[in-house]
């Protein structure tokens, strides 16, 4: 029994548990915290998979920036509980059934059809982390330079959009 395997199992259990917590928690703040936990476990998965840059980005962007934004909005709007749902009585059972079916389908796909039971190509140890990072950076800034730049434009547009959306119109106060 390897410690990596034990680590994987524990991390997988934490990830699923935190996701379940997200699903069931009535309090929005708790939900956000469950998600942060989930993101953190996923970041460890990335480290296990030999992707330290992505793992750090995950922690920085998701667990840091995005979740702070979420919490900020939760605080802004008041993390109140919603009243009990009136309509759509069949929504919940149907959603559960469908999610289950999806899961079954995916599992079937995974283990029966694709036969992806093969081990990962090379162990974490054999990966030269520095080289891998360099290769990633090369690829990103050579082959994917244009998409990278477009991403910056996307972020700019999103920023302007948010400003325009949330900006109060002139005279709206009086009205």
């Amino acid at each position, binding site marked *: 029994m390897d410690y990596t395997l034990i680590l994987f199992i524990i991390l997988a259990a934490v990830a699923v548990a935190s996701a379940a917590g997200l699903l069931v928690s009535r309090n929005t703040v708790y939900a956000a915290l469950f998600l942060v936990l989930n993101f953190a476990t996923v970041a460890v998965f990335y480290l296990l998979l030999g992707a330290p840059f992505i793992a750090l980005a995950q922690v920085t962007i998701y667990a840091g920036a995005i979740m702070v934004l979420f919490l900020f909005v939760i605080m802004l709007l008041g993390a109140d509980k919603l009243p009990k749902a009136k*309509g*759509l009585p069949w929504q919940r059972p*149907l959603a559960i059934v*469908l999610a289950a079916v*999806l899961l079954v*389908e*995916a599992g079937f*796909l995974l283990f029966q*059809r694709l036969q992806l039971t093969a081990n990962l190509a090379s162990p974490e140890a054999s990966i030269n982390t520095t080289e891998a990072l360099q290769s990633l950076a090369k690829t990103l800034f050579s082959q994917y330079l244009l998409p990278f730049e477009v991403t910056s434009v996307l972020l700019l547009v999103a920023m302007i959009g948010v400003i325009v959306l949330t900006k109060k119109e002139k005279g709206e106060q009086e009205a």
Partner: protein
Amino acid sequence: MGSSGLFSLVPLIVFLPVAGLLINMIFGGRLSEKTIGAIASAATGLAFVIAVLLGVALWTGSGETVVVPFADWIHIGDLNVAWNFRVDTLSVLMMLVVSGVGTLIHIYAIGYMHEDVRFKHDIPRYRRFFVFMNLFIAMMMILVSGDSYLMLFVGWEGVGLCSFLLIGFWYDMDTLGRPSFANSNAAKKAFITNRIGDFGFLIAGFTMFWWFKSLNFGDVFSMATTIPAGVILFITIFLLVGVAGKSAQIPLFVWLPDAMAGPTPVSALIHAATMVTAGVYLVARSAPLYTLAPQAQTTVALVGGITALFAATIAVGQYDIKKVLAYSTISQLGFMVAAVGMGAFVAGMFHLVTHAFFKALLFLSAGSVILGMERGHHHLAHQEGHGSPESADREHRQQELSDSGHLEEVFDPGDMRNMGGLRKQMPVTFWLYLIGALALAGIFPLAGFWSKDEILADAFQKFPAVYWLLTIAAFLTAFYMGRQVWMVFFGKPRHAVAEKAEESPKVITVPLMVLAALAILGGALNLPGIHTLTSWLEHTIAGVEAGEFNFLVAGLSTGLALLAIFLSWLLYERQPLAEGQKDPLKKLLGPVFTVFERKYWVDEFYWAVFVNRYVDIARFLANVIDGRFWHDFVHEKVIAGTYNWLSRTVLDLGVDRHFIDAIANGLGELTKRISTSLRRLQNGFVRSYALAVLLGVVVIVGYLLLK
């Protein structure tokens, strides 16, 4: 120009009047009254000239029949009718009479209609009158010049049409100028009565064609002996029906007295001198057929004789100056028909000619008298002081219109009871009328004496019964003419108007003088012993013999005529009729006179027996057969009902609504229902949409898995 060249002129006798009527019809609106009258008269006069030339050509030539081909008309199977002109002594005689008397009457009409249209307040109708008159002359010429029974029939119908048009010339008023249908009813009566006669003519014509395979005079006459006698009898009897219609014989004479509703020149030309004699001409023309059918001859002679007497008795009881002459015409036509029926064709044609002269003279003189009375009436109305002539005229007319309900208020210029003593006011007309009356009465040596005497002499020889009928009729003729002359021209005026009556202008009196001369001298045509007309006509009518002059017959008839005139003098002149006095003959004869006066109630009889029954049948057909059966039942119920049922119940409800509409509505309803139920999917809940997306994912993945 040779005589054969002259014969080729014959179509002109038809086309000259046609040209005249066309000119007047097309350009007449811009021409003056005198020009219109002159054109019409000239057209007729030129036709007379042509007739004279034809007569000369016949006289100087052999006198045999000449057929001038003119045009092909009908060419079907066996039937081959050409429009050929037949120039022979008989047809030329008729042409001379028609165009000669016609010309004089046209000239007379220039003056007469000038005043008539003014008395009746419709000046534009002047032109129409002359158009009709020229059309009549053309049709009459077609009648007498045709070479076949069919062409004769064309003319026969044509003159019937003209008669209708001219009787109804003042179609919107009665004879006294009041608004009424009386004149047009008279025209219809004449036309319909003639139709009955024409039916007989047609039957005869069809039978003739069936047996002879031809309608040409030449073919028919040459084959006549080879045809069974019964067929000839059948044909001739049915021709007699036609004759009775056109020549106003019993039983179809009733239209002629009513035909006096037409203007007086029409009465003279059409209903005395020419058209009504077409029947006599037809019998004379068909002489070869009639001589083969003695029974038919007897019938014709009897019809003529009885008509002569019958009409003469009615004439005795009439008060209207033109009605007396109308019945006299019927009576004289009876003489002619009787003559040609007995086989005395020459005597009949002779009387036809002389009668045309003196009866035209009498009618036109009567017209002159009526005009004189009208003038007097007019004059009187003016004297009573109604301001200017024209406004008086209008007032007068208005007054007459408003008075139209009161018959006695309207002055009748033709009623002899209003006249009296007119010889002082109208001396020229008086003398002319006297000549005509004496000629008609058969006084020596006027034309009527010779022609009537020839008929009587023939009848005495051949048919004693008819002789006696005609002799009595001749006696009555002299009596009613005497009565008329005494009543109109002698004694004292019985009405203020008669005192003011005025003589007619020269345009009216001069043609009358010519006719008077003819009435005096007409007898010279066929004087006993010379027999000009007989030798003239024997070229055409085979086997005519010169009538023997019978002094006994002549003496008796002259004596009777003088006696009749004396009797009329006794009754009407010795004690002249006073104003409002009853006819002295009425006292003498009592109810018999009433019978004469009321014309034996023949009209009433016809109304009761034929017209009313006909109306009943027409009503039955209209109301029951056409209205209730054909319209209400067949059309409304059967056809419209079935159609409605089909369209409403079957097509509309069954096919359209329950089938086609159902499909269309069903489609619409289906769309509506589907959309209503689908609408619920669009519930606005974001999560439902997300669910649908997931469903799609699941389904697609499942599909990919199972593929």
